[in-house]
């Protein structure tokens, strides 16, 4: 009997200490996983409080927060304001990234090839099938393009990357909008599918004359050849932190309910056209108020001290005015 009591006591103690440490749990998008885990690591060192983030995909993250099994959810495809209202959720952009078209073309270096949104859509629609097609040559008169078939590579799994990429194609090409549309998984007219950003990156580096799209960080880490783009203002831009930030600051965050802004095809001479933010979801009235408050503390810390870490991983921090706006949202909407 004594023994049993001892076990119960130890069990209770273990339970209470773990509750005390109040590890914040989050789940969702795979795209921000590297930066969230880096932040969590640094935060733990500084404060002793841990954060457990499961990168299970945007859709799954939305489901987890709706089911209240996590403190926060993360998604690359933002929820519309009325959906947020229905589920009693608050949403804000946490960090940004960009999507770049990548190619495997002999003798062509990063940034040399220039594409437009419409052309990219035509390639993904299967209308432009060869690298020496007149439409590509017209934009790249100086390049020596091979007379080879274009191997189109895209994501096979549903993903926020695909959501933002197809959103851009739909904005740039009416044909794409009616025939394919936008979403985390769409009805691809042509091409082979690969799983994850790393799958697409692997495919591109393996296949000659291939084109694909990946998060900028993946293109950089895998040393893939990226293409420049012609943006909404008609200017040719290269994927750089400056061009991504230009797109973000040109977006009108203040007027968007629930921060529902998709950063693709933003105005501005310097804006990279396929920029994307990744979002955090939390309950307005959280079930576990302590954990929720802890999470907000973490996000505040990340906005204040996490910028450099994000940049090291090729993410783009949210611009200062947007952070101010978000912090106002927290104090107004989240009850803790």
């Amino acid at each position, binding site marked *: 009997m004594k023994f049993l009591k001892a076990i119960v006591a130890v069990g209770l103690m273990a339970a209470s200490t773990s509750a005390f440490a109040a590890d914040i749990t989050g789940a969702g998008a795979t795209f921000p996983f590297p930066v969230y885990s880096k932040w969590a690591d640094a935060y733990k060192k500084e404060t002793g409080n841990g954060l457990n983030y499961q990168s*299970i*995909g*945007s*859709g*799954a993250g*939305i*489901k987890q927060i709706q089911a209240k099994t996590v403190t926060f959810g993360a998604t690359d495809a933002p929820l519309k304001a009325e959906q947020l209202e229905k589920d009693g959720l608050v949403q804000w952009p946490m960090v940004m990234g960009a999507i770049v078209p990548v190619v495997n073309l002999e003798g062509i270096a990063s940034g040399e090839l220039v594409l437009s949104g419409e052309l990219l859509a035509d390639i993904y629609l299967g209308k432009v099938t060869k690298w020496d097609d007149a439409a590509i040559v017209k934009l790249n008169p100086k390049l020596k393009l091979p007379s080879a*078939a274009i*191997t189109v590579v895209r994501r*096979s*799994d*549903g*993903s926020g990357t695909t959501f933002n990429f*197809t959103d851009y194609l739909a904005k740039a090409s009416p044909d794409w909008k009616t025939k*394919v*549309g*936008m*979403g*985390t*998984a*769409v*009805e*691809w007219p042509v*091409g*082979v*599918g*690969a*799983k994850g950003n790393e799958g697409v990156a*692997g*495919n591109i580096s*393996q*296949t000659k004359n291939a084109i694909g799209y990946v998060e900028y960080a993946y293109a950089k880490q895998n040393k893939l050849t990226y293409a420049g783009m012609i943006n909404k203002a008609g200017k040719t831009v290269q994927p750089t932190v400056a061009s991504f930030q230009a797109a973000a600051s040109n977006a009108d965050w203040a007027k968007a309910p629930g921060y529902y802004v998709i950063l693709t095809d933003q105005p501005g001479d310097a804006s990279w056209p396929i920029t994307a933010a990744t979002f955090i979801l939390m309950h307005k009235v959280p079930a576990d108020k302590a954990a929720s408050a802890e999470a907000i503390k973490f996000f505040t810390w990340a906005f204040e001290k996490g910028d450099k870490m994000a940049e090291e991983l090729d993410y783009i921090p949210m611009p200062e005015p947007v952070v101010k706006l978000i912090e106002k949202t927290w104090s107004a909407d989240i009850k803790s």
Partner: protein
Amino acid sequence: MADMAVQSSSMEAAGPYDRAKALSAFKFGDQAFYWITRLCAMSVLLLLGGIILSLIAGAWPAMKEYGLAFLWTQRWAPANDPPVLGALGPIYGTLVTSVIAMAIAIPVGLGIAIFLTELCPQWLRRPIGMAIELLAGIPSIIYGMWGFFVLGPYLADHVQPFMIATFEGVPVLGTIFAGPPSYLSLFNAALILAIMVLPFITSISVDVFKTVPPVLKEAAYGVGCTTWEVVRNVVIPYTKVGVIGGIMLALGRALGETMAVTFIIGNSFRISGSLFGPGTTISAAIASEFAESDGLHQSALILLGLLLFVLTFFVLSGARLMLMRLEKKAGN
């Protein structure tokens, strides 16, 4: 069990041997044993029933929405409003890759098994046998990566161009083996599957071939049969039930294999006339899209899972039926 031991020892201590009591204790033990094993067996049925029911419950919205047309609709457009979803592409890919895989793996696997048991010199037996066991032990993701980085590019650069050139202009075959070469294709996925299921066929066949009584083979050799004749007329007929069992196990794996196929098949829902085009299988489609799916899309993926279940069920019951018929024939 422990109770029984305690009871019997206490009985001994009680002194005079009570036969009736001992017997009833044995009877109780027997009964308990019967019920425990029966419960274990029943739990399988319960589990299976539970899985089927939850699959049906999950697939119900998609069944209601798409009906039987789901089976022959080729479009897969989850982003449409409402989503247009059909299973023809994955079903086609599953069947084509499995059939090709089996067409390659059955003759090769049986060939290895026959060589190992009938013709192989003693010193070569162990290395080959172990190589096959090892082949079975490689995780499927490793097969996938190997297919992606090594086999796929090799096929696309050397094998496919040759086949395309050979069959060009030939009716039917010309369409089946039409270019351009690609290392993400139905053909490559089928080849990887063939390699993956090979050890199943081989090791089971080797095991059953070993059960053939030597006296039967010796008698056949004694009347002047060649090795081929012995295999054809003695070994195979004697072991066909076991061999077919191995083939069915292999087919089951080929139908359900996910990771390796997802890596190398190209994951396209469109049906391509050429084997060198990309395709998808039921399990690859589910693995790719499930995490980010919801609503009807997810329900349709669960329905795909149910279809795979049904497909496998039919294949296995078909095999049972065939075995029964074979046994009947043998009986006559």
